[in-house]
Structures are given as C-alpha cells and as structure tokens.
C-alpha cells in the first residue's frame, strides 16, 4: 500500500489529509489514521472481527460515513480498529472486515476525544497523481 496522512490544524478542532494511490488504500489509510488519533496501541491486535457495509451519495459522503462508523465503533462499542480489509469498494458503497481491540484505557493510550466526523470542508478527490481525502473532526 502506498498511502500517507498528515494532520490539518484547525482552531478548535482537528483534521487530516490522506493521500493514496487508489481508493482502497485511501479508505484503509483514513480508517487506520482515525484509529491512531483515537488511541495508541503497542500490543498485537486482539482480533475481534466485525464486518461493516455502508453507503454514500458519492465518494466524499461515503468517506464521511465510513469514518463515522469507525468512530461509532470506538465511542459506542469500545472497539478500536487495528486492521482493515476492504472487501468491496465503489463510489457509493463500501464493505470491509475489521479486526479490533476492546478499548481499555489501561492498555491503550487514549488520544483527544473525537466527538464527530464533520462534513465541514470534507472532500475526496483524485487526479493523475492519486487520491486525496480531507476530513475535519469535531473535538
């Protein structure tokens, strides 16, 4: 996989810009980047597997919905995503298998509380150089 992300400074909140060669790498890297912001883990993945299937109106909406789902798994189900396998991906639909840890504040170093993935300035774009996603989180 050839992908990378950098954090975007925002006065009250925070965001990230992810770049990748293709959409599968983009969605994988964006998901893992979000997980890395939520909490740091140094031990091997516990391997609690779950599967998600999501839809969106376009690539941007799909990316927001994807990250919203991963954030919900963390905030609502205490599941920290460690590994992602994209099973199916097109502009309006994603299916993925996730391997997760049960979030434990004693074993995982929690990052800042991310309340939500916003639509504010959200964008997925692509050109000959590759794919880019820009997302702002509400902290």
């Amino acid at each position: 996989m050839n992908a990378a992300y950098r954090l975007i400074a925002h006065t009250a909140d925070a965001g990230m810009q992810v770049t990748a060669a293709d959409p599968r790498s983009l969605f994988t890297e964006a998901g893992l980047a979000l997980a890395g912001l939520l909490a740091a883990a140094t031990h091997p993945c516990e391997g609690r597997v779950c599967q998600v299937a999501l839809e969106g109106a376009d690539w941007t909406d799909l990316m927001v919905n994807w990250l919203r789902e991963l954030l919900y798994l963390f905030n609502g189900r205490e599941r920290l995503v460690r590994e992602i396998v994209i099973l199916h991906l097109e502009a309006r639909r994603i299916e993925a298998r996730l391997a997760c840890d049960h979030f434990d504040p004693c074993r995982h170093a929690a990052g800042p509380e991310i309340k939500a993935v916003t639509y504010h300035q959200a964008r997925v774009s692509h050109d000959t150089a590759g794919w880019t996603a820009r997302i702002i989180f509400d902290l």
Partner: protein
Amino acid sequence: MDIRQIDAFRWEIPRSGKMRVPGRVYLSAALLDDLRQDEAMQQVVNVASLPGIVGASLAMPDMHWGYGFPIGGVAAFDWEEGVVSPGGVGYDINCGVRLATTALCENEVRPRLEALADALYRHIPCGVGSTGSIRLSPAEEKVVLRQGSRWAVARGLGVEEDLARTEDGGCMPGADADAVGDRALERGRKQLGTLGSGNHFVEVGVVEAIYDEAVAQAFGLFPSQVTVMLHSGSRGFGYQVCDDFLAEMGRQVHQTGVELPDRQLACAPIQSSLGRRYLAAMACAANYAWANRQILMHRCREVLGQVFGKGPAALDMRLLYDVCHNIAKAETHTLEGRPRRVCVHRKGATRAFAPGRGELGDDFRSVGQPVIIPGDMGTASYVLVGTEGAMKETFGSTCHGAGRVLSRTAAKKKSRGRAIYRELADRGIQVRWTGRETLAEEMPEAYKDVAQVVDVVHGAGISRKVARLRPMAVVKG
C-alpha cells in the same frame, strides 16, 4: 470581505450575494486581528444565507472557526418559516456551565488545596471512554430524557433550589425519546454523571474582584469566596443525536430546494416532520446534559463536605446558575417593534436575559440572568448579568468563554519542553488531568484573553460585568 466598523465593539458585514440578512460581529480591533487567518467571518456570511433567518447573523467576541456555524454564532429563525440546523447547535448539545457558591473562603481552602484537587479527581469520572457509577435501564433512561435535572433531584442528587437556578428549570419541554436513535440511547445509558474530556472541567475558584456590588450581593457573591464551576454537556448521547440528524438532514435537504454553502449547515424547516423530530431529540439531549451537570455538582458537594468536614448547612454550596451554550430554543423577541416567535440558535453563545423576563424565575427576575463565562485554566473566569442591550441586539445572547486562538496542534508545539502543570502550580493552581495531551492542548495560551472578550460584551452593553474568579484547582478529562 467587506467588514465595516460601526463603533469600538461592533462590526457589520453588509448583505451581499445570497445573504438574506447582514452579519454583525462583536469584537475589539485586537480580537478582529486574531481572526484574519480564520474562516469564522465567512461562516457568519454562510449562516446569513439560511432560509427564515431574521435580524442578523451574529457572532460574539469569542468567535472562531467552527464547522458550518462559527463557534460564538447566534442566529434566530422565524418559527413558522425558518429552519433548524443541528450544526447551529453543535455536537455537544447543551454543553454548558454551572457555578456554585460556597460559605468557604480562600484562606480555609488553600491549606488543603492539593487534597481537594486529588479528591475531586478521584470522585469525578473523566477522560475518554469514562463511564459513571450510574447505569440506566432503557426505561429509566427515557425518564432522564424527559425530566432532566428533575430526575437527579428526585433521587437525592441535589436540592429543589437547584432547579430554580437552572436555565429552563433543567428540563426542556418537548423531549420525546421516540425521536432518538438506538445508537444514541445505547451511548447514553452508561455515561450519565461523567465529565468528559478536552475542554470540560471542574474548577475550584475564588472571587477576586467585584464590579457590581448590588448584583453580586443578589447573586450571593463576596470577595475571597470559594466557588465551584463545572463545564460539561450531553456526552456521547448528544454527539450521536447531532450526528444522526445531520446525516438525515443532509440526505433530505435537496428536497427543500435549499442551496447550502457548506454541507455542515444541513437543516430542515422547523415545522417539518424532520425539523420537529430533531427538536424533540435535541430536547432529550438538553435534558440529559442538565441531569449530568446536576449529578456532577452533587458529587462535588459531597467531596467538598468530606475534605473540609462540613455538613451541607455549613458548606452552603448553592447553585448560582446553570447556563447552556450549545442549544436552539423557541423564544419570543421584539423585532421591528413587534413580538416574534423565533428559534434562537446559540452555538458557543450564552443566553443573557435582562431583568423582567419571565423565564428567569423569582430569584433573578428583578436583577437579570447570571451569565457564567469560563476563561482558560490559568487566568480567570467571569460572572456577568444579562441586559436590555442583549434583548435589543442579540436575541438575549452574549459570549460563552475565552474562545480558542491556537489550534490543538499549535498549542502542543508551543508546550514542548514545558511542564504546564508546574507552571500552573507556581501560580497557585493545582491541576489534575487524564488525557495524554490534555494539558498541552488546553494550556492558557491556547485561548484568547478572556478579559478582552468580556470587555467587548460589557462595552457593547450586551451583558455587564459582576465579578471575576481566579482558578485555584482544576480537574480535566
């Protein structure tokens, strides 16, 4: 952008393009300079384009770049023709502040300050993923959502007087749990009675200056008095309500023909089924937040009683007031000489009603609403009082805090190599915290000077200074 100065504290963005009303912001020249690199002004313009907005798209002096609406934004929409926007309320629905006074003086507390900070940290659940000692059954959760603070007081977690000193009596009407999604309900069952993280805090402070003797006396404030301030909200319950409705409104907004300059401004007509459902779910979250702050304050009462060996009468820890600063409310205001029902969105802004408003209850109807303005953890906080100026200009609204000036990334960079807790301790402030980067992100320099912010709202006459509080101990998530 065309920004015209009206006077020392008021600036107008004249109507242009798709703006339905002008923008008006309350700033000093110095605070305006801080916003040059920020998108907050454009967000004031964007809000001015939403259907049914009346008066002006407003922003308070603690304004900064938000998402959709600016933080510090106030916008009122006609109750019949206008829209409601979850982004105009924010994810943390009814995030707010409450301030309690005590009979303790600084010289009694100072010798035991470290023990007090430790005890508060032990007894107030805080930090990412924290859960409280209260576990709600699905049926009991719905009672909380309907009753708000009343639920807590009925279970011995507070006293009746607390309700009279909470905005809306701690219970927003119209709450309907059937409007709330399963995910929000699930998240709400385990987080009641928790502080949260980030900028949420418990702060023990001391009254260090009084600006208005008569109002301070009516509020029960005196020099050297020890106070307890709480900043928290509706926790994951509120975040999920906002998230669910933003997504739903985003999918449906094209049906209303509304062109949005920012998808985060997704909205629905107030009188539509979706708009009404959001308001019913938002009221549930508002009530959850009030119950949450009520429980947290009760825990603080218990801790102070234990640490200082005083019973409730001797401690005399009384709620001064609880204000929400992320909310949309149905209110009646005078516009062009006529009363008009509007839905006032306050996102990072505080209600500041003048004397005479019926909503204030017996304790404050003759003096005006107490307004609680927290600053950063190293400087000061303020108590203000609502004024007629706010009723005339800002739909009875004022600022909500210092407002950030540094991004979290910039704050972390600035804190490198420094021990923020030690710097604060050297200034007499004990800090306890949970998150690995909380102190760096929340360092005093990350915020505007709250005194400058308060001077603007005081100078503009949209609220008036009553007292300044200095922090002594702070607990953060």
